[in-house]
């Protein structure tokens, strides 16, 4: 077919060649990326199936594989590509954290238990943040994109996490107050005041 177009001096021949080259380039790219992304699949799967508290230990090996991916996969070593993957990973972490902090469970149970659960979740989230920063440091000028590109949603999520923590800490403080006995000369009066 190419020969036919070429021999008849067809004006479509150059575009035919162009598309041929584009397909070959895109195929090389897709094969390269697909091959290098595959090892990550099992990391994401185990993150989805592991309890969020225990997922903490999964972050380091995952970032190690991402580091290898970035270093060895020629077609993936651009900011625009890695930013997509990192955003999606943040989505996964946020999803796992939200599922772990099921609102029904939080509000129905004891406040101090809820607080403990919130603290555990924070610990995992902070671990993720730490591992990300370590990887980024290692990449130094190679990952020179703005963190906002990756963490816009994450930052909002963390703000909400802070709010939830504050809410439960406040509730906890007030509940403690209920049990407080105030002594002294004006004890009885003050005790009555705190109850209202």
């Amino acid at each position, binding site marked *: 077919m190419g020969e036919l177009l070429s021999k008849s001096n067809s004006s479509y021949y150059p575009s035919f060649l162009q598309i041929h080259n584009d397909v070959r380039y895109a195929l090389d790219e897709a*094969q390269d990326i697909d091959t290098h992304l595959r090892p990550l699949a099992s990391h994401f799967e185990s993150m989805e199936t592991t309890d969020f508290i225990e997922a903490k230990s999964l972050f380091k090996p995952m970032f190690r594989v991402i580091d290898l991916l970035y270093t060895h996969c020629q077609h993936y070593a651009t900011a625009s590509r890695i930013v997509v993957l990192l955003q999606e990973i943040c989505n996964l972490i946020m999803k796992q954290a939200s599922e772990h902090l099921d609102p029904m469970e939080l509000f129905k149970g004891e406040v101090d238990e809820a607080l403990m659960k919130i603290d555990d979740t924070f610990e995992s989230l902070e671990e993720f943040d730490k591992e990300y920063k370590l990887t980024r440091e290692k990449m130094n000028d190679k990952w020179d994109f703005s963190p906002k590109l990756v963490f816009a949603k994450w930052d909002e999520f963390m703000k909400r996490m802070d709010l939830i923590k504050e809410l439960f800490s406040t509730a906890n403080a007030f509940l403690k107050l209920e049990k407080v006995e105030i002594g002294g000369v004006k004890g009885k009066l003050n005790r009555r005041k705190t109850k209202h």
Partner: protein
Amino acid sequence: MILFSGDLIDLKLVHAVESVVIEWSHQIREVLKKDSAQPLLDGLDPLPSTEIEFWKSKRAHLESISEQVKLKFLHQRKKTFSI
């Protein structure tokens, strides 16, 4: 039929091939321009498995396109010679 640099060429066939090439170009361009960032741009919350699936399927599509393009050229040329 006209004679072109020593070969007999059917102009009708050339036109037919040209229109097929145009159609294919459009179809192939559609596949080529697919971007894995699209779900993010659409404001969805895709998970990393989306990225893995995207490249797996893009690879499969391109392998099949590349295979078809090669095969069709061969078939077409066989037919041309047998006319």
